[in-house]
């Protein structure tokens, strides 16, 4: 009972973070019609930016704030948002012409980018692992005999808040409407007067920013090192395939679903197979519902 409660809570917290990463991937995919294979590396860059801000730059500025971690994580998101836009404009946009051969290269470019970022990080930061101080003390639920890592709780809640904000951006602002229009039909959106070049750049920045803030929030839990994005990439892609490529709602539901399947499987069956549960879940979907939870049977690309 206690184990069940603990793993359910964990699944909920993990789910929120997974959702953040998956939304980053699926958002870029639905706007730009490319899969960003460097997702995990933006997650990694986010975690390093957070590490630098929280443990070097803030102390150097004499900044001591309550919840400094949240400010730092949001700043890390902002930095990667800008980095993402620069990368999109300089490396991806020149190849990103839908309907041409070059379009394929835009996806390949994201693969190259992941290698570049990873090696760059090893070069700059070395192969060692770093962490940031815990965000909150552990939370002890005496009656239930449950201990929850404060950082997990804090980062899970922050992730939920960011997901909510992202939904507000999408469904309550004119920018969000423009994004939803482009996701539906790029050509029609362009005739309606939307500048796809700018919108693509913004979308790439936002998508990578979402992955980055996940990495930043998880820094005290999953550490900061050049290879910490690998799991993020894998989880992210499992989720978007399960949820249906291009479906944000699907990504959110699939994120929580995956976290639940993994958590319960690993706690009550065999822990070393944890990564495998996700794959089984994924393969189940590919066989019985290849378009994912909320996807359309054909991809419009």
């Amino acid at each position, binding site marked *: 009972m206690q184990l069940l409660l603990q793993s359910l809570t964990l699944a909920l917290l993990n789910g929120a973070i997974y959702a953040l990463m998956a939304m980053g991937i699926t958002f870029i995919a639905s706007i730009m019609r490319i899969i960003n294979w460097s997702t995990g590396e933006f997650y990694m860059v986010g975690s390093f930016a957070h590490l630098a801000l929280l443990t070097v730059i803030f102390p150097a500025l004499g900044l001591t704030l309550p919840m400094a971690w949240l400010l730092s994580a949001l700043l890390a998101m902002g930095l990667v948002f800008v980095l993402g836009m620069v990368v999109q404009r300089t490396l991806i946009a020149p190849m990103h012409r839908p309907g041409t051969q070059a379009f394929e290269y835009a996806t390949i470019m994201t693969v190259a980018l992941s290698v570049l970022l990873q090696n760059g990080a090893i070069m700059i930061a070395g192969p060692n692992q770093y962490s940031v101080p815990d965000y909150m003390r552990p939370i002890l639920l005496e009656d239930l005999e449950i201990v929850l890592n404060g950082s997990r709780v804090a980062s899970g809640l922050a992730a939920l808040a960011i997901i909510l904000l992202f939904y507000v951006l999408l469904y309550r602002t004119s920018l969000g409407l423009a994004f*939803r229009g482009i996701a539906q039909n790029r050509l*029609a959106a362009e005739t*309606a007067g939307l500048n796809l070049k700018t919108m693509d750049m913004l979308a790439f920045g936002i998508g990578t920013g979402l992955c980055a803030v996940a990495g930043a929030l998880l820094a005290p839990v999953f550490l900061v090192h050049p290879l910490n994005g690998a799991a993020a990439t894998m989880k992210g892609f499992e989720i978007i395939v399960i949820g249906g490529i291009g479906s944000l709602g699907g990504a959110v539901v699939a994120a929580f679903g995956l976290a639940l399947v993994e958590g319960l499987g690993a706690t009550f069956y065999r822990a070393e197979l944890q990564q495998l549960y996700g794959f089984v879940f994924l393969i189940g979907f590919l066989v019985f519902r290849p378009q994912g939870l909320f996807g359309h049977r054909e991809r419009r690309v």
Partner: protein
Amino acid sequence: MISSILQIRCLSKRFGGTHAVREISADLQRGQIYGLIGPNGSGKTTLINLISGFYAPDTGEIILDGEELTRRKPYELAGLGLVRTFQMPKTFASLTVLENVLLPVAGDGRSESLDAMRDAAFDALATTGLTGMAQHPAGSLSGGQAMLLQLARALMCAPVKLLLLDEPFGGVAPALKERITHTIRQINERFQATVVLVSHEMSTIRALCSNVIVMGNGQVIAQGTLDEVSASPEVVAAYLGKPV
């Protein structure tokens, strides 16, 4: 006051061996509604696509109200007051009808919030008779309603200088044809917009258009009132498929 709004000079477009538009030159006047007719395959859609920036011309230039259009992006043209509809209506199926109408405003960087533009949007919906459908997804509209939705969207791109309509009546229920005609008139009157209407329905052309341009084989073969052009032997020949 009659003044020139669109000048086309020596415009050509080839697709492989097909010379879809050959060296067309034309001068359209502000506030006029032009009928663009011609047999299937005569190049009407290609001409519309060239003017609206979907195709880059092989040669020639297009000047709208003093602005050279040829190397501009489609989204920039919307900002210059050039609006078009598609033969197969392009709507955003999972957005609501209201959101579809608001979309052009979302992209133009104006500081007004969506809320501020809502009145204009409802106004456009009223003109097109879609008010009742405002909160429905656009995917649930019939073909004719979708065409009206494209026109409602055009109403939001104010001020419209040039409206290009590619067969807006194709497969539309008669009751809605009336509404479409009404909306075209509205746009024409409200903005002094020039309209180019591609259609096969001579009665509508007669009712709406003061001036008709006839295309055949990628060229303009006649221009004038409907009665004038119908009398032209070249037009008759083109419609009968005979060489001139």
